[in-house]
């Protein structure tokens, strides 16, 4: 620079000096701007795959309730899917629909369509009035099909699609003209709409959530969910239902993916009462509460445990979780030590306390042996046999459902007779399961499950409290990952301090949000979510926000080969 200055004319020197100053100032200003702009703390993420997922019965029902109101009775039952890495939601992308299921869904669709077009409902569910009730009305049919079709398909219907459906409605009006059903004359126009609505309700695009990607304008090499797919992913994640009108509109007019758009949408969704439906569905899945549908206890051993008890036990835990995490925004980990819950009369029998009719907040007293979710009837009864408690099932459930650990299946050829036909000299479970630890092929796994379950032995197979078993005092000492304690309250405290507890929730929430188990390359994102969750006081709502707004949630991988996908899936397990 100095050599150039020496060899230049004065005028050039002046220009060069001012140019240099300007450049320096510009660089400084640029540096200042860079320094002031927010740095995205989320690590780079490859994102996830686009998926085509089967809608769940609950999602279908919730969506119909939003579109048509809760007055429409839609008894939706879909065939169960297999649990994959802790969640049913992880299997929806590989679930299909059999012919039998289609018939079942068609039955629901037919019932819903009939109710919507019933004279008691159609005046408020069909916004327009036909010119004549006996003949086609394309304008009114178009209005209805466009509005309902958009909400059901989670996107605006194309003109061709609308024309096809309206044409079908008109054709049905003519075909059904003058006919009767169950002795009643069909109202032509509405009968036509009923036929079309039934068809819409079982349309593949309604039953399957089809995600699609587009290049990210900020990085054309990178794919992201398109606006409608992002809206659907957010809505099914947070509300367990299709996007509402406002979210669809944001997707349609570009607002959703404009600067700050997704933040506004997620903020609104997190404040909506519909978040409760979404999180109830998530925790129901994570805690394996679908097993309540088939849970039964031996009525001669646990006569007090009825189907109402099972139903209320599930409800109690879900109410407790929602109140703790969403209503009070409290630390997720404290769910396992909190004495606050809700009580119903049927459930109060199990807890040996009085109860008012209906559900009411309830706090277990300080001298109660119960505190936290592990001491609720739901966890205790679900993780027991029909006629007895199970230290192994309880320990395994805690590890797999709450800590996201895998307990291997028992090796083949195990002799269970020592447990099923116990020596009468061994009155308590502790003495009976000691056999586990004496057998080398059993001991490896049972060492990580049984000490947990033994600390819950003061609760029988139905969740009732007891101090003795077969006349012998129960020793409820146990341990979890090196921490020793006496009884269920100690277990709850140890679990709440276990670092794997919040990490497991993060992993499950992210899986649930994106529709599949996290692949290996999601590790950095999961670490970021874990740190953020801890920094924000382990508050669920903040975790949901962080994940919903993350790149790991909305970015899409660039079509990996099937081989890579398989490899990634396998190694993530």
């Amino acid at each position, binding site marked *: 620079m100095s050599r150039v200055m020496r060899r230049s004319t004065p005028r050039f020197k002046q220009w060069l000096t001012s140019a240099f100053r300007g450049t320096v100032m510009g660089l400084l200003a640029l540096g200042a701007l860079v320094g002031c702009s927010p740095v995205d703390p989320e690590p780079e993420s490859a994102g996830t795959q686009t998926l085509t997922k089967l809608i769940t019965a609950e999602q279908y029902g919730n969506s119909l309730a939003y579109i048509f109101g809760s007055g429409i009775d839609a008894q939706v039952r879909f065939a169960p899917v297999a649990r994959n890495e802790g969640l049913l939601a992880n299997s929806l992308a590989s679930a299909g629909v059999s012919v039998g299921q289609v018939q079942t869904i068609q039955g629901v669709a037919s019932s819903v369509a009939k109710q919507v077009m019933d004279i008691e409902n159609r005046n408020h569910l069909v916004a327009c009035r036909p010119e004549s009730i006996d003949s086609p009305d394309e304008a009114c049919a178009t209005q209805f099909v466009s509005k309902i079709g958009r909400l059901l398909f989670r996107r605006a219907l194309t003109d061709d699609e609308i024309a096809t459906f309206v044409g079908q409605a008109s054709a049905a009006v003519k075909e059904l003209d003058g006919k009767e059903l169950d002795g009643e004359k069909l109202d032509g126009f509405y009968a036509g709409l009923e036929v079309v609505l039934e068809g819409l309700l079982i349309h593949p695009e309604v039953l399957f959530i089809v995600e699609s990607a587009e290049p990210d304008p900020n990085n054309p090499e990178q794919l992201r969910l398109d606006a409608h797919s992002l809206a659907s992913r957010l809505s099914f994640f947070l509300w367990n239902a299709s996007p509402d009108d406002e979210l669809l509109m944001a997707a349609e007019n570009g607002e959703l993916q404009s600067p700050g758009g997704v933040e506004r949408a997620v903020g609104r969704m997190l404040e909506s009462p519909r978040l409760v439906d979404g999180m109830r569905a998530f925790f129901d899945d994570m805690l394996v509460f679908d097993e309540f549908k088939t849970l039964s206890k031996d*009525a001669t051993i646990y006569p007090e445990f009825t189907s109402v008890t099972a139903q209320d036990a599930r409800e109690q835990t879900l109410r407790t979780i929602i109140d703790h995490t969403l209503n009070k925004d409290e630390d997720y980990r404290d769910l396992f030590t909190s004495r606050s819950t809700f009580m119903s009369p049927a459930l109060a029998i199990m807890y*040996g*306390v*009085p109860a*008012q009719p209906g559900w009411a907040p309830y706090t277990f007293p300080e001298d109660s042996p119960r505190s936290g979710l592990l001491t609720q009837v739901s966890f205790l009864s679900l993780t027991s046999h029909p006629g007895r408690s199970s230290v192994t099932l309880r320990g395994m459930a805690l590890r797999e459902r709450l800590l996201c650990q895998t307990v291997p299946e028992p090796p083949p050829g195990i002799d269970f007779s020592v447990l099923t036909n116990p020596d009468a000299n061994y009155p308590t479970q502790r003495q009976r399961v000691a056999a586990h630890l004496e057998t080398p092929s059993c001991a490896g796994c049972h060492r990580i499950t049984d000490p947990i379950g033994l600390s819950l032995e003061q609760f029988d197979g139905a969740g009732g409290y007891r101090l003795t078993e077969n006349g012998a005092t129960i020793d409820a000492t146990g341990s979890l990952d090196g921490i020793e304690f006496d009884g269920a309250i100690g277990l709850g405290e140890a679990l709440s301090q276990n670092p794997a507890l919040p990490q497991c929730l993060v992993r499950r929430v992210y899986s649930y949000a994106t529709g599949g188990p996290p692949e290996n390359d999601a590790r950095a994102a999961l670490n970021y979510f874990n740190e953020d969750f801890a920094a924000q006081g382990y508050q669920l709502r903040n975790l949901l926000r962080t994940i919903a707004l993350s790149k790991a949630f909305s970015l899409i991988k660039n079509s990996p080969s099937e081989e890579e996908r398989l490899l990634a899936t396998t190694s993530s397990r």
Partner: protein
Amino acid sequence: MTHFWPGTTGSQVRTFALFIITLAAAGAATAELPEPYQKDGRIGYVLTRKAWVIYEAGGVEAQCPEGLNASGVRQQFADLFPMDGDEQWTVRETRLMREGRMWHPETSEESFPYLDAQGEVAYGLNLDGKVDPDDFRSPDGIEGIDNQLQRAIGCTPGWRSDGQFVHFESLFAIGHSYNRWMIELSGVDDLSNDDDVTVTTYRGLDDLFTDATGDGFIAGGSQRVDARWGQNFVEEVKGKIVDGVLTTEPVKVARIPWAMRFVGYYDVLDFQLQLKLTPESAEGIFAGYVNAEQWTNRLNRNWGSHHQSYGTVSSASEYRAMRRLADAYPDPETGANTAISGAAEIELTQVYILHPSEQ
């Protein structure tokens, strides 16, 4: 009428003691009140079964050697107004007349035979403190048992243990919360032996909890006291627990809800309880006198003609029998007794009773 504790005769003491010993031998005795079923010396029970009780050991042959009453309302109507002749009947002189007999019963003689139950044994209590010739002996050998109701209804199929009333009255008691009747023991130090407890009766508001078999009832449920419409069902009386058996002093009038589809109750006069107690349940009897007119009125309100007929019951005939056998509460003008002694077999299950201040 008698007072149960003061002025008790020697024979009463002996019979009572015998009764208690017998029940205690059945294994009712328990130790101290266990948690969580009692709190502050209180324990509540809710009624889960009730039926006017007839001693049926030995079968029909033993109590009804001449057979069972066979003419219910419809049979009587058919006998009175045969339709196979030429005679023409008016509605007024047939249906309305018989309807009137049901709702305004008479004690005049009637042409239909009515069979009283025979025998010397009956469930119940010695309500008047006497051992009269027409009194019964309890199954445990206690003399002086007052239960003339057994004579009046014991040979009528509808009232026997396999009759429809026993089944349906309990079914309705279970299924209709109007019929929810509860007792609460307070001041209980020991559920096996306590010579001074207070028993309060209430009407409850809530459903019962059946167990997983659907047949039994679960202890530990909750029942709110009906403080608004249930005041007439509240009575308080002292009692004693001896070897696990509670016996109360008499209550002048205790109102027991007893409705089928319609509102109804019985006012039981000189009402007493004798119950075998456990922390989870109570079973035994209540005994007392029932006014014959009220009994008939309740029968007609709860059970229509067809129900009465398939139990071969005719309330008009039954009323005559009840008045003939009535053994207490004489009419001040005529001197004829108006109320009949009887007993009901009852079963109760422990509940937490929620008083208005706790609701």
